[in-house]
């Protein structure tokens, strides 16, 4: 394993680990606040229990998210000093703002979790609102950095390759900024909301307390389902920005080798780098041109338009993209189904077919998020800053990077196993206590 690959793997693993906790940290506080709000309005005990349960989950998952986020902020320098040396002044701004948002989140999560008896009801609810809002704000700022790496603006390059005339405000408003932020926020609410709905659907199927889980299901779906339905539309917006600003990434995620007008949309298939074609895909004529440019005869650039060393690993990106779209679509369909059933006035908590579907698609959002992150990050390779700086030029000169990579992998696998066990036992406790 080369040092570059080890560094990329460590970063990918750290981000892949953190992103799940970040998503939960954005959306679970919202569920918790909604439950507390319902409790304060209706006085129903089940809502209070629910708020306390979700708060417990938030406490554990937020802490793991906070420490794994700290690791990332250091890893920027430990693994990518070349990137930080040049890009620091441009992307430091959103990171600094994120620092303050994170401060607010950490302060008010302390007030919320430990303050049930110490602060007044309004103050307590408000603390939860601040946690939910600053979690979302943190995500906005961090994704602005990633958007800049995909569509870098706000500087000029001098002859030595240094960034001069830096303008951090312009850098924050890069072409991909709005679409990427929207996609990530919707992903957080969709993945977390639908996963929580899946857990409670599963509990209902097992005959646990209807009183409790019916309310939980409703709140989780109110947050998760609209986001899941909107996400494909946001994905379309994102894809069009990618088509315009990162044509090679688009070609990789679609497995498009040849530049052509009226390009087909490929579903499934395996991009074969040696034969320079995507085999066994279901091709929908004109589909890609239509989706990416809203014109059936639009020209779509192929991978062969750039030399091999400028192409991302096509197969990984293509498969990840297909996975994301498939899982996201399944989530959206089940969300629509739930919405339609609710609109028809049915009681969702007794509709066993719907509950089964919700339980099955529960984890889809997180898997789709991981796949989507692979699409945007691996799809940008070999660049760390699209078209400007290669990942190979950003990596630390320290040899033996396989050691920290392996160490952090073991650490995170262990941590992940503990978190899964802990959350499972928290969920079990719910059924035991309230069944």
């Amino acid at each position, binding site marked *: 394993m080369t040092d570059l690959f080890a560094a990329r793997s460590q970063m990918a693993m750290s981000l892949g680990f953190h992103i799940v906790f970040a998503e939960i940290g954005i959306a679970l506080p919202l569920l918790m606040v909604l439950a507390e709000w319902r409790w304060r309005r209706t006085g129903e005990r089940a809502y209070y229990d629910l708020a306390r349960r979700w708060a417990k989950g938030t406490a554990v998952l937020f802490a793991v998210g906070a420490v794994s986020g700290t690791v990332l902020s250091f890893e920027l320098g430990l693994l990518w000093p070349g990137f930080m040396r040049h890009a620091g002044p441009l992307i430091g701004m959103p990171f600094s703002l994120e*620092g303050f948002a994170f*401060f607010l989140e950490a302060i008010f999560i302390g007030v919320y979790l430990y303050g049930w008896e110490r602060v007044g009801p309004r103050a307590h609810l408000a603390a939860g609102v601040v946690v939910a809002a600053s979690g979302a704000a943190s995500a906005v700022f961090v994704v602005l950095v990633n958007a800049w790496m995909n569509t870098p603006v706000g500087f000029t390059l001098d002859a030595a390759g240094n960034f001069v005339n830096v303008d951090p405000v312009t850098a924050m408003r890069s072409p991909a900024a709005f679409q990427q932020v929207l996609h990530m926020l919707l992903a957080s609410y969709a993945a977390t909301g639908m996963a929580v709905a899946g857990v409670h659907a599963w509990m209902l199927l097992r005959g646990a307390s209807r009183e409790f889980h019916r309310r939980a299901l409703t709140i989780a779906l109110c947050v998760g389902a609209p986001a899941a339905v909107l996400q494909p539309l946001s994905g379309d917006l994102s894809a069009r920005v990618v088509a315009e600003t990162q044509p090679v990434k688009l070609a990789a995620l679609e497995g498009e080798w040849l530049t052509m007008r009226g390009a087909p949309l490929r579903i499934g298939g395996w991009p074969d780098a040696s034969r320079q074609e995507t085999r066994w895909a279901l091709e929908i004529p004109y589909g890609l041109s239509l989706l990416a440019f809203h014109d059936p005869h639009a020209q779509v650039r192929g991978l062969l338009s750039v030399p091999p060393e400028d192409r991302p690993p096509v197969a990984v990106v293509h498969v990840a993209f297909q996975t994301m779209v498939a899982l996201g679509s399944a989530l959206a369909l089940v969300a629509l189904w739930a919405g339609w059933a609710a609109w028809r006035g049915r009681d969702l908590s007794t509709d066993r077919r719907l509950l089964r579907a919700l339980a099955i698609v529960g984890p889809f959002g997180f898997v789709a998020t991981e796949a989507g992150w692979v699409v945007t990050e691996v799809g940008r390779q070999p660049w760390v800053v699209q078209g400007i700086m290669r990942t190979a030029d950003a990596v630390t*000169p320290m040899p033996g990077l396989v050691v920290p990579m392996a160490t952090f992998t073991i*650490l995170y696998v262990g*941590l992940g196993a503990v978190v899964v066990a802990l959350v499972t036992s*928290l969920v079990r406790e719910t059924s035991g206590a309230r069944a």
Partner: protein
Amino acid sequence: MRLDALGLPEILAAIIVLSLNAYVLTGGADFGGGVWDLLARGERRAAQRALIASQIGPIWEANHVWLILVVVLLFTAFPAAFATLGIVLHVPLSLMLIGIVLRGSSFVFRSYGARDDATQQRWGRVFAMASVLTPLLLGIVVGSIATGDAGAAADRLAAARDVSYTSTYLAPWLAPFPLAMGVLALAMFAFLAAVYLALATDDVALREDFRRRAVGAEVAMFVAAFGGLAIAEMTAPHVSGALIGSRALAFQTLTAVAAITALWAVWTRRWRTARIAAALQVSLILWGWVLVQYPFVVPPTLTIRDTAAPRATLELLMAALVGGALILFPALAYLYRTFASAKH
């Protein structure tokens, strides 16, 4: 140090040190609490641990953000310094991160996990050991920056001279002086924690437990500080020379006064005075390092001016800091007021 030499880069450097100072006084004490969890002894062992957990619980995550702020401000305002430190201090910083991850996660696993004793003890032990590891490494990192060995290794690497793994990535921090600074940081955090904990309880016996611990930690600080100075005299005379040189002498005198005041106040059970003196002493030690090192961020080569980001970034960052502070400080005050003590 002429006044007109103090521009935006220096102000931002000072804000970074202030953030580090805040981290040491708050987050540092949380790690110190973990040290006392590890060393909990006697019949009040469980009560000691319960007090520590109640004091850390609501605030450690907010306290931890100071460190993130330090990192973020460093790479925004002084990106070249951040990049350099990331390269040559990769190993100790990675080890410190492992400590940070294990400390935070084991603390919540203990708080929210299974209530049975075996599970509690297991996570308690991880929490306590990570609380010892992390401050040690933080001190080691600071020590290796202070000696100039980390910076010199980076300079050699840039010039492609003597780039063996050991001399570049291990020797700068795996040395007597940085190790002494690691012990000093550990003792400092334990000292702060003991003083804060004594003030946070009404239980006289518990107070006395932490009074004895505070005295012990203060003694350990003296030993580590003077041991470090002696080591510096032998291995890095430019550091010891600077530490007791004319520029720093007045400063070191102040530190000594604060240290003696803190010890006297702990001894005579004047807890509020002790808390102020302890915080002052620890802060003065930190600023003493900064003063010795000024104007270098990473001695012997990289200065504040050399590594500063472009003006546009610094100005914007300054504005963000002012705006952020207006929100942050009232929120922090609210947090601390809400959880002022474990007393009911």
